[in-house]
C-alpha cells in the first residue's frame, strides 16, 4: 500500500501542475492517464465548474471512481448526452472546447508529438506504439493544447520519429499554413517544470522549473536546445500537502496513474 504521507512523486507533481492549467468554467477535453487525473483533481479543487469531454463520447459525467478507459462508465456516468465519436471531436472544430490535454511518447522542440513508434520505419519500427487514437484530432482542432509526460532526452527529441500530431510543425507560422486550427500547444508539463513556446519561432522555452532544478539541469534532460526566458526563471508551484492528500485518497486512491511504474 502507498504511504499517504510520503513526499510527492514526479507523477503526482505533474498531475498538480497540469490541474493548475485548468481554469474554472471551461470545457476540457481529456485523454487517458494523467490528463484524467488532472481534470478530476481540478474539478475537486479550484475548478468545480469545468465540463470534461472524452473521445468515446462521454461528457459531463457525475463524479465517480477513476476511469480505466476513456470509454468506461465513469466517463459517461449519468451524462445528459453521450456523443458519437465524430460529433465529439467536431465540438473542438466548432469552437466548443477550450483546452485539450494530451500525452506523448516523444515531443520535439516545436511541440510535435509522436505516439506511433520508436524508429523511422512504419513497416518495421523498433517498437510500435499506439498510433494516434484521438491525439491527432485534438491537436488539430482544439483551441489550446497542453502536453504532459515524463522528460528524458529520448522523449524530448530534436525531431520526432513520426509526427502523429502537429504542434507548431516547423515553427513560425507553419502550423497555420498547414491548415490546422487553434493555437496549438501552449504548454508542456514534465517533472522538470513547465515549458511554453516562444511566440515568434514557436520553439520550446522554459517557463518555470521545479524546486531544485536549474536551466542547465533541465537542458541535460532535453535532446534539443531549450530556449531560456528573459530574466530569472520562476519556480513551478509545488503540490500543497492537502491537495496531495486529496489526490491520494479521493482522486486516484489506487495509484493507477500516479504511482511510479515498476518493472
Amino acid at each position, binding site marked *: 500500500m502507498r504511504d499517504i504521507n510520503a513526499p510527492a512523486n514526479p507523477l503526482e507533481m505533474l498531475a498538480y501542475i497540469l490541474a493548475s492549467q485548468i481554469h474554472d468554467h471551461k470545457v476540457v477535453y481529456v485523454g*487517458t*492517464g494523467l490528463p484524467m487525473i488532472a481534470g478530476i483533481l481540478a474539478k475537486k479543487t479550484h475548478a468545480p465548474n469545468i465540463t470534461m469531454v472524452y*473521445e*468515446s*463520447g*462521454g461528457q459531463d459525467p*457525475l463524479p*465517480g*471512481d477513476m476511469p*480505466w*478507459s*476513456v*470509454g*468506461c*462508465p*465513469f466517463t*459517461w*456516468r*449519468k451524462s445528459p448526452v*453521450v456523443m*458519437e*465519436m*465524430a460529433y465529439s*471531436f467536431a465540438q473542438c*472544430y466548432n469552437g466548443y472546447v477550450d483546452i485539450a490535454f494530451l500525452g506523448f511518447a516523444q515531443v520535439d522542440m516545436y511541440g510535435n508529438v509522436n505516439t*506511433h513508434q520508436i524508429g523511422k520505419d*512504419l*513497416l*518495421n*519500427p523498433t*517498437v*510500435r*506504439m*499506439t*498510433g*494516434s*487514437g*484521438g*491525439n*491527432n*484530432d485534438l491537436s*488539430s*482542432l482544439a483551441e489550446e493544447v497542453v502536453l504532459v509526460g515524463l522528460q528524458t532526452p529520448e522523449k524530448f527529441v530534436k525531431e520526432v520519429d*513520426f*509526427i*502523429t*500530431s*502537429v504542434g507548431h*510543425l516547423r515553427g513560425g507560422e*507553419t*502550423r497555420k*499554413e*498547414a*491548415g*490546422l*486550427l487553434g493555437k496549438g500547444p501552449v504548454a508542456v508539463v514534465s517533472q522538470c517544470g513547465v515549458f511554453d513556446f516562444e511566440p515568434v519561432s514557436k520553439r520550446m522555452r522554459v517557463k518555470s522549473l521545479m524546486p531544485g532544478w536549474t536551466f542547465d539541469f533541465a537542458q541535460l534532460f532535453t535532446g534539443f536546445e531549450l530556449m531560456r526566458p528573459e530574466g530569472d526563471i520562476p519556480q513551478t508551484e509545488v503540490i500543497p500537502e492537502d491537495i496531495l492528500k486529496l489526490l491520494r485518497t479521493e482522486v486516484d*486512491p*489506487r495509484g*493507477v*496513474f500516479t504511482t511510479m511504474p515498476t518493472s
Partner: protein
Amino acid sequence: MATYQYNQEALANLKIEDPSILDRLIDFESARLVHLKKERAKVDKRMSLKEAIATYVEDGDVMTDAGFAYVRTPHQAYWEIMRQDKKRLQCIGAPNTNHSFLIFNNNVDYSHNSYVGVEMRGIDRNYDRMLRAGRVKILSEWSHGGVALGLKAAQLGTPGVFSKQMLGSDILKYNPYLKVMQNPMRDDPDPVVFIPALYPDVTIIHCQLADKYGNAYIYGPTVNDLATAAAARKVIITAEEIVPESDIRNRQGTVIPFFYVDAVVELPFGAVPGNMPGYYYWSRQWWEKLIRLGCTSDENLKKFFDEWVFGVKDQFEFVDKLGGAKWIAEARIQTKAAEGDHEDIDFTYEEYTRTHDSGLYY
C-alpha cells in the same frame, strides 16, 4: 466499375504494389447494390453465433471493430472467428485493437489502424511483434476522428467529407485514402483533407437489446456503431437479450434499423470479458493477465488462447471460468455502480501481476 486514384506517396511508403486490395473499403456502388438487395420484409433473422459467423464473415472481408476499447465490444464473436479459422481478413482497428489477437491466430493479414494498445495498460506487445515479424501488413494509418468521419460520411450519404484533422502529420504519408486539397469555396489558402466514405464488408455490433427482425438498441457510448451499421455490407447484431418489437418501439432511442441487419444472435455475455453497460463490468485481472503475461511472447499468447478461446465451447463456459454465478452478480453490481445506478462500492481489487496471480479473473 469505379477506378481509384490513391495517394501515391502513401502507396509507395506502405509498399503496396497492387492497390486493388484497397478498393472495397471505398467502393460505394457495390455497397449500395448490396444494401438494395437486402431483405425488406420483417423476417425472423435469429440464428446461432456459429451460423452467423459462418455465413456472414467471409475470408478476405474488410471487418471493422465496434464498441470502444473494452466496452460493448463483441469479443465472443471474435473468439468464434478464431475458432472457425477465417482467413485473410482486413481489419479496421478503430477505435480498438482487438484484431491484434486475430492477427496472431492467422485470421487477419491486413490492418487499418487508428489505435493499437490497451490504454493505461500500455502498448500492445503482440501487435508490435506481429508487425515486426511481417505477419500483418498495414494498409492505412488514421486518427480516431479520421475513421469516425469516413464511416459517418457513409451514413450521411456522401462521397466523403473535408476535414481539418491529420493535416501536416505523417499519418497522411501512410494513408492511401487521404488527400490534401484546397478548400474549393475559399480564395485564400485553406488546406483540407478529403476523407472518403468508408464501406466495410462486415461489422459485428453487440447491443443490449434487439428484436428478432434486427432493430437493435444501444445504451451507453455508441461511438461509431450507428454509422458503421449504415455503411457495412453485412451487419451481424449480437444482443444480450431478444425483446419483443414493442419494447424497442417504446424506447425509441439509439436504434439500428432492422433493414440494415442480416443476422440477429441472442448472445448473453457476448461482450465478456469486456464491459457491457447495464449488464456486467469488465474482467480486470483477465485483461491484466492477457497483457502482462499473454502478450509478452508467442508461446504465452498461444497458451492463453488455448485456455480461454479454444478451451471453451462458448461464452457460458467462459463465464464459468471467470467465476460463474458469483462473477455475474459482482460484475452486475460493478457496472451499475460505475454507471451511477447502484450505491457506490469499493472498486479495490487484487491486480494481476507476473508475481501475483490470485486465480480470480474479475
